């Protein structure tokens, strides 16, 4: 499965501006709403998840996987992509500050496994990740992701 295909119009933001982690998650939530896989309520749930459990969603240097659990606010399974112009702190001791937020909505525990596997592949390569975060437009992100699938 190509990650580029999982990121339709409106789900990618590049050089985005967020003043704090809540705004960064909100942008990821906007992308999920634009992609038709979640309602705005899900954005609130993603923020509450961090308030409750801490910034554990920052799972790699500079990278946060914003998500909550399957709920009525989830309409489908999908992801969104937010590359930040300036990094923001999430309060993660190991991996702050964050420059890439990927939003994830999943309807159950299995439907998103293919997309997670593609994402893990992309995240594993620091150089690729740097290029993707530096992208100026959503088209550039999509084109680079599509290239990766064929490499």
């Amino acid at each position, binding site marked *: 499965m190509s990650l580029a295909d999982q990121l339709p119009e409106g789900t990618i933001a590049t050089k985005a501006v967020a003043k704090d982690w809540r705004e960064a998650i909100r942008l990821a939530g906007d992308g999920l709403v634009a992609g038709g896989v979640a309602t705005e309520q899900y954005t609130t749930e993603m923020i509450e998840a961090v308030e409750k*459990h*801490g910034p554990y969603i920052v799972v790699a240097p500079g990278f946060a996987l914003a998500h909550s*659990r399957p709920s009525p606010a989830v309409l489908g399974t999908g992801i969104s992509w937010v590359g930040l112009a300036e990094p923001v702190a999430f309060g993660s001791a190991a991996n702050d500050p964050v420059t890439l937020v990927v939003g*994830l909505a*999943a309807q159950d*525990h299995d439907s*998103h496994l293919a997309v997670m596997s593609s994402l*893990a592949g992309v995240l594993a390569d620091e150089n690729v990740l740097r290029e993707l975060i530096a992208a100026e437009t959503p088209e550039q992100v999509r084109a680079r992701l599509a290239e990766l699938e064929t490499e």
Partner: protein
Amino acid sequence: MKIVAVCGMGIGTSVLLKMNAEKALRAMGVDADVEAADIGTARGAARTADVVLTSDELAPEIGEVPAKVIVIKNFTDVNEITEALQSSIA
């Protein structure tokens, strides 16, 4: 061997961790079941597991379990996960 990857919700970061732990275990030639769990069910799952993988923030929430709890900093770094598993199961 049973390994549980724990995150707050059981669908996002723990799935990423599970996938990379499976990669690490394959490379090590170790036969193990890796399961993703949310923090709510993790305590139960950890009771029958040998190893629990989680983040710094969530480790205290798991509390006292018979399994060995390993904190992973970078869930996307298969090398870090490999080293952590090697030192705990060797």
